[in-house]
């Protein structure tokens, strides 16, 4: 009997996932974006093997325009722009995913605790969330970046520690409604340990909205890293990042005469963020229970 019911549960899970997969595939822009992102991810990961030059090595003349030898030209000190672009994409994706992972982890734990226990714990956590949220976002990031030496890992940590309040609120809201459902009440009555109720019963039921929200956090983190690096307070040269490659365009000569230095990284940021947002949108449509029956 027990074995039988377990099997049907697995089947149900599989059919739920395949339903979501099928409905994701219906969102054309989402699917195109997914292919695009995977290609970019692959190119970025394989950068050391597919680029003919080293990212920080001077390989040509200063600021030479695109040619057969340097497909996107060279920068102000003679490094290959295309090579640096691929390495910069690596950095952007790393920042996006790593800081989102940190933010999601913090937000999930605080949201679960806050929603499930309520009372004073909830009050304190939510007031703290209000505090972090009432900072103008970019201000907080800038102050933090000024304090802790700007650099790749500090940027990841800063963005991670700033982005969690949204996740916490989302999870808390979900927990509040799940707490009253029969299957959670049954757990409580059966005397299951709280840890089990929280992580094995409640958390799996909030995964879908968390995932959707997390994609928007990835997009935001990539944009924020770019903005910070553009202002010179993010990833520091010589490490290439999509933001600091645009930094030079603040000078009018580069802006006017050397478009190959600032247009490609900018366009790449847009495409990257746009594709992540489309994937998030497709995911939102796919997991929305109101669409399941259709």
């Amino acid at each position, binding site marked *: 009997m027990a074995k039988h019911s377990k099997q049907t549960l697995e089947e149900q899970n599989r059919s739920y996932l395949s339903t979501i997969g099928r409905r994701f595939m219906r969102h054309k*822009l989402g699917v195109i974006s997914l292919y695009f992102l995977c290609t970019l991810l692959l190119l970025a990961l394989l950068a050391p093997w597919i680029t003919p030059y080293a990212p920080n090595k001077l390989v040509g003349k200063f600021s030479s325009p695109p040619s057969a030898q340097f497909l996107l030209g060279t920068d102000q000190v003679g490094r290959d722009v295309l090579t640096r672009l691929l390495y910069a994409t690596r950095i952007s994706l790393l920042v996006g995913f790593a800081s989102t992972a940190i933010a999601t982890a913090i937000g999930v734990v605080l949201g679960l605790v806050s929603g499930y226990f309520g009372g004073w714990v909830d009050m304190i956590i939510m*007031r*703290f969330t*209000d*505090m972090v*949220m*009432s*900072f*103008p*976002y*970019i*201000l907080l990031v*800038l*102050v*933090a970046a*000024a*304090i802790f030496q700007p650099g790749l890992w500090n940027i990841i940590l800063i963005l991670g520690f700033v982005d969690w309040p949204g996740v916490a609120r989302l999870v808390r809201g979900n927990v509040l409604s799940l707490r009253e459902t029969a299957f959670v009440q049954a757990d409580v009555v059966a005397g299951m340990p709280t840890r089990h109720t929280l992580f094995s019963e409640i958390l799996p039921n909030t995964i879908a909205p968390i995932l959707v929200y997390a994609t928007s956090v990835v*997009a935001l983190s990539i*944009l924020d890293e*770019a*903005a910070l690096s*553009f*202002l010179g307070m993010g990833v520091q040269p010589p490490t290439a990042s999509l*933001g600091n490659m*645009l930094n030079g*365009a*603040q000078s*009018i000569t580069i*802006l*006017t005469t050397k478009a190959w230095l*600032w247009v490609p990284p*900018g366009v790449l*940021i*847009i495409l990257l*963020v*746009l594709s992540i*947002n*489309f994937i998030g*949108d497709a995911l939102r449509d796919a997991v929305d229970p109101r669409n399941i029956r259709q």
Partner: protein
Amino acid sequence: MMRYIIKRILIAIPVLIGITMLDYLIMSLAGSPLAMMQGPRVSQAAVEAKALQLGLTQPIYIQYFTWLGQLLHGNWGYSIKTYQPVWEMISQNLGPTLLLVGVSLILGFVIAVPAGVYSATHQYTKGDYAAVTLSFLGTSIPSFFLSLILVYVFTVVLGWLPSGGMTTLGTGGDFWDVVRHMLMPTAVLTASFAGSNIRYIRSSMLEILQQDYLRTAKAKGIGRFLTINKHAMRNALLPIITVISMQIPMLIGGAVVVEQVFSWPGLGLLTMTAIMNRDYPVIMGVSLLSGLIVLLGNLLADILYAVVDPTIQLK
């Protein structure tokens, strides 16, 4: 109602104090503002005298209480860099920022409300896809990149618009001069505001369109126009209020990057300079102001909810 407002203000005070404590703590970790002053031409004794004068030798919590005490007397402190009163600096820079961000926020809504409503009422049509795609584009373009493109097109290539500042140097700056300087930064900010608003309004409108009371309204035969504009719009006001209250913090900190690119003399530029110089009193002032505005915005949103939706009871 009055009791509710008073209660909310009382709750907001500890949050505000918490914000300032957090600010002070973070900044004390940043290191001394005098580190920027040190150099071969500045003697160690001068630096120490300066530290004593600014009260930097005292423990951090004493410094905090001194700052808080002065604040309660209406003194926001003095800039370490320029020796100007902080409040004077903030009030000088507040106007340009409010003008720039305020106009952009309003324009963002003027574009987003009709676009979002159209998109929701014409779901899965070409117009809907166009609106959604544009809104995604608006939120996905980094503001500094859009700024660069605009400067390239309108200043470098066409030579129509000035690349930065608020008025032409040497002139007093009449109304049209300011407008010309504002066009590009406003366009950049509006694009990002409208982008996020369209999607929000669209999705909340879609939700409302599925409600039973709308089916009733349709069944009454009052026509599509009245159904949408009278019954649906009124209920869509709630989520719109939420978006407004979410974007109120933008009034202070939302334009840092854009102000930097266009050298717009606002709070963002002031803050950026203060951060670079570790000018604590100025950073504290801006943070406090933004905290105040955010809390006020939240309160305002809750009151507006009750005004718009009679079923919400404030307790």
